[in-house]
């Protein structure tokens, strides 16, 4: 019999998802191996904190393991796990006291770093945006989702999503230009 992890590494994702849904833990481990860079990067852009991002990503995978038996269409796995990830992020921020449907006028929740000489990266610039705005921006640019897809994932009204992306992009450009990050 071939070595299970090596064997799974070559299998198509639909097959691996199917096997994981039947309780195969090696198949689930392979799914984690395949999806973890994407999920951890997504969580890093959303949270701006590598440790928190990994913790959230682990929670998402645990939920995937708990719920994967109920996944009827294995070809929808990518969208399904994305929905779980976004829900996990929104739940986490709600527990931290974020009012999810707040207006953009609430302005930034984290002040931009004071020293232009500091190593300003994208995550630091994203941290200057309010949670719902940052989430819309990350889903639009990191995930390359359309506005209707973001509306569906976040539960925010379509007009709010458009406004968050338009004004969030502008703010992000301003912050990054301030540090010579985007020109």
């Amino acid at each position, binding site marked *: 019999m071939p070595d299970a992890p090596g064997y799974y590494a070559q299998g198509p994702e639909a097959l691996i998802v199917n096997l994981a849904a039947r309780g195969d833990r090696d198949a689930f481990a392979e799914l984690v191996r395949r999806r973890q860079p994407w999920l951890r990067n997504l969580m890093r852009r959303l949270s701006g904190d590598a440790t928190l991002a990994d913790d959230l990503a682990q929670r998402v995978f645990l939920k995937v393991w708990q719920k994967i038996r109920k996944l009827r269409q294995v070809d929808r796995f990518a969208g399904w796990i994305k929905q779980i990830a976004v829900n996990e992020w929104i739940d986490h921020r709600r527990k931290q006291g974020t009012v999810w449907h707040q207006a953009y006028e609430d302005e930034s929740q984290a002040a931009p770093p004071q020293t232009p000489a500091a190593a300003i990266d*994208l995550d630091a610039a994203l941290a200057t945006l309010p949670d719902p705005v940052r989430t819309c921006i990350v889903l639009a640019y990191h995930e390359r989702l359309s506005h209707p897809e973001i509306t569906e994932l976040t539960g925010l009204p379509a007009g709010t999503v458009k406004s968050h992306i338009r004004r969030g992009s502008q703010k992000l450009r301003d912050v990054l230009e301030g540090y010579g990050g985007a020109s």
Partner: protein
Amino acid sequence: MSDERDPTLESLFAAAEEPLEDAQFTSAVTDKVSGRRRRLIAGRLGVLGMILVLEVLLQSPLQQSLGVAADWLGRPIVPLEGEWLSFALSPVNTAAGVLGAVLLAIHLFLRSVLK
């Protein structure tokens, strides 16, 4: 507004993508899955054990209580001579019969009031 994206921001997001090492993260997730499974099995075994212990402990008192209740409910209110007469009147001449009649009366009363 269309879904058009700012190319500068797009390239920044692409550049921020990190190739993340997987072995440690994957084993942490699979360990948690195994731990959760072990806790679930241990929890189920614990509940099963408690049920068995409670059954053993309460078997005798429960049986005794049920026996006393059945005896009390079946006892004639007015002692009657004759086995057949006592049997024929038992629906109205026992605590169970009276209790049943009272419950039926309450039910009929409520039904007529709430109609």
